């Protein structure tokens, strides 16, 4: 670790989160050196506005695409949006993709990836069944214990990735396999009935405002996570780590700790998804987590995050998970054969990736930074003030 005092604030660079819009945006971090002139207010104002546009543009496409998908659904498969299909199937099923996708987004922000999601989901679901013994009075402790095990898994993965610097793809894939094997063994020892406590099963069928309570749990988790990421000090530091780990480290942010935290959070979110899935299906099976290996990653990428690391929006991630589920259900309602469903679904993800926010930001970035364009963003008052300062 260099002995430079530049790690301290005020000597070189400051990480500042931009305000407003979807959760999880961060200003460009500049390390700077003592020899360079401090940016003027005008320059900072222009930079802030350009950054807002640039960062915001990453996440707009998925919202527009979802709106378009809604419109297409309403025209060609209106039954998809009927109460029966929409509130009882699409919204809860979207939640099962969205919740692990929230955790995945945090990991992706650090430049990593988490492929242990199916393993965590299936282990947590079975632990819930086994630890509760199907009894309502054991439900709360079983949930905490199951999430605790998920957290330990996340800590383990995070340690291997952040401290020992192992490849996250290999680590999490291996961890997922170990968890699957462990669940197979554990499954053979739990009760004949192998179901969740009745209270949890009943909860899964309850609705509020005509929509499954599972959906509302997912929305709550998304709002809380997005708020923490955007507005809390820890969240902003996390964003700084995601945007530029080296600069964050120089600025004094414990990058290793935050990276481990990302995997910890991802595992907890996956565990929460496992509990919700167990509630919904009541008798978890060994293949419970299989559909959630790639779907959450697809949601994160379609939402505008880059797999190389950087910024991500948790609310946009939720929207992307919803869009994927809606598309899937629309194809089923249309009665397309499975082969055609695969083709259409794959093509949609491909198109979504081609016009993703990440790519859009990569195109817009150089354009916005051209002097003529940058000047167009200038606030005349601030620019004049900046010139007086200079």
């Amino acid at each position: 670790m260099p002995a430079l005092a530049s790690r301290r604030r005020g000597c070189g660079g400051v990480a500042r989160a931009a305000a407003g819009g979807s959760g999880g945006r961060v200003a460009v971090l500049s390390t700077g050196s003592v020899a360079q002139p401090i940016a003027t207010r005008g320059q900072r104002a222009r930079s802030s506005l350009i950054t807002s546009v640039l960062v915001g543009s990453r996440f707009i496409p998925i919202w527009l695409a979802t709106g378009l998908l809604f419109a297409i659904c309403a025209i060609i498969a209106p039954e998809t949006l009927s109460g029966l299909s929409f509130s009882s199937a699409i919204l809860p099923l979207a939640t099962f993709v969205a919740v692990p996708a929230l955790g995945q987004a945090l990991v992706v922000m650090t430049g990593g990836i988490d492929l242990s999601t199916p393993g965590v989901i299936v282990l947590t679901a079975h632990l819930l069944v086994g630890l509760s013994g199907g009894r309502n009075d054991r439900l709360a402790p079983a949930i905490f214990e199951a999430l605790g095990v998920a957290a330990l898994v996340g800590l383990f993965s995070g340690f291997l990735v952040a401290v020992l610097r192992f490849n996250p793809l290999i680590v999490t894939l291996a961890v997922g396999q170990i968890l699957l094997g462990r669940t197979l063994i554990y499954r053979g020892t739990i009760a004949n009935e192998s179901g969740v406590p009745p209270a949890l099963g009943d909860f899964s069928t309850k609705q509020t405002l005509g929509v499954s309570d599972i959906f509302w749990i997912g929305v709550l988790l998304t709002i809380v996570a997005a708020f923490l990421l955007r507005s809390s000090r820890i969240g902003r530091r996390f964003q700084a780590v995601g945007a530029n780990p080296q600069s964050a480290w120089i600025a004094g942010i414990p990058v290793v700790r935050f990276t481990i935290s990302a995997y910890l959070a991802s595992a907890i979110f996956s565990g929460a998804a496992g509990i919700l899935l167990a509630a919904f299906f009541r008798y978890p099976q060994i293949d419970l987590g299989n559909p959630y290996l790639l779907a959450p990653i697809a949601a994160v990428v379609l939402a505008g995050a880059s797999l190389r690391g950087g910024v991500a929006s948790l609310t946009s991630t939720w929207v992307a998970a919803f869009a994927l589920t809606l598309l899937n259900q629309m194809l089923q309602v249309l009665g397309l054969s499975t082969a055609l469903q695969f083709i259409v679904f794959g093509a949609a993800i491909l198109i979504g990736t081609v016009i993703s926010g990440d790519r859009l930001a990569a195109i817009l970035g150089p354009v916005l930074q051209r002097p003529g364009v940058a000047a167009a963003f200038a606030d005349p008052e601030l620019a004049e003030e900046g010139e007086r300062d200079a």
Partner: protein
Amino acid sequence: MEHRKLSRLVRRWHVVAVSAVVTGLVVLASATAGSTATSPYGAGVFPNGKYGENYNPKPATVAKAIVSVKALPSDPVGKSIVLAAMKRAEQKVDLDLAFKCWKQGSCDTGTGGKYVLGDADGFCGNVWRKVTEMEVILQALTYKQIGKIIYTCANLDTQKAISDFRGLISQGANVMVGYADAGNALLPAVRDATKRGIPFSTYVGGTIGTPGKDYTTVLTQDLCGLGKQFAAIVNKYAAGGSVAFLGGTPGNTLTPQWQKCEKAALAKNVKYAGEADTSWTREGALKATSAFISKNPDLKAISFEYADGFVGALQAYEAAHKPPNIVYTGSTDENSVFCEAKKIGNKGFRMWSGSGFNSQARMAVTASMMQLAGAKVPGVITIQPVLVESKYPSYGCRPDLPIEASPRAAVPISLFKRMFPG
């Protein structure tokens, strides 16, 4: 006087000769009994003792395993093999030894028998597979000639399945059974076993290669007949409505066989709502059923071969807060669907199902052993589809069994409780 003595002597010898001939005929008739004997299971069934087997199980044993004696194969040799297997299922065996074998995956039976039974399973991750493994063990323990049992599980890994199969041969397996999940990729190893004179019988999982030539036999069911039975029920109870078909993994060879035949047999007043793959998962069934019920308000029937997967379809109705006033026709009989139906408690839901066919593994063991005893085992042994209705309100739910187990499995309850404690 002499003449009278001679006549008496002739008459006596006459009686003796006639008695001897009659006795001989009776003995001959007994020896060939079965070909034309009064077997309760019809003509052509082997006589007891042939190939070391007894072919007269209780009808209740047969009905429990395959729903009804009407489900027995139509050909006499196949029928005899199934009957022999069911007769052995009635035998009491050492349950402690069976549990030890099941837990360890391999064991010495203690009989000193010269045969090593290899059980090559393609997957072991669900209760059906674990119960079937136990059925193989229980059946093997009825054969004193089997001195060792070895079980392998490939966990759906094709490469592992092949190496497991070859590994069993190198460990000395000289009689084999298995579920051919790996499909035709397993054929070279299977043919190798056949060349070495090792009988291999497979069950449930579908036909690979040429049964009867590449390996001993495949135990299967008449899937087209199953589809026609589905259609008969749907035509009777869902007239005026529509029927949806759910299937398994995309591209599987089992689903299209019954779906094709059911669709062709549907009455004109039953609308075909379409088909959807579910990957044989509850989630897949839930998604597909949600789509069907939102698009087809007149949906009156669903056909799906996999009962446990159909639980997802019922959960789609629950999630939609809509009573499942439909007819379900299925093939397997996992406890989960009965208990879910009981839990929902809707009188308008009617269901028909068949057998989980764990017992086919027993039949496979017996088929392989009978080949070693000299029997000419047919390449395909087909169980006829017979469906029974499970009725409201209990629908036959068995709380004492694991939720995914089939109530038709021939595993003692005490052993079930040890296999799946709770």
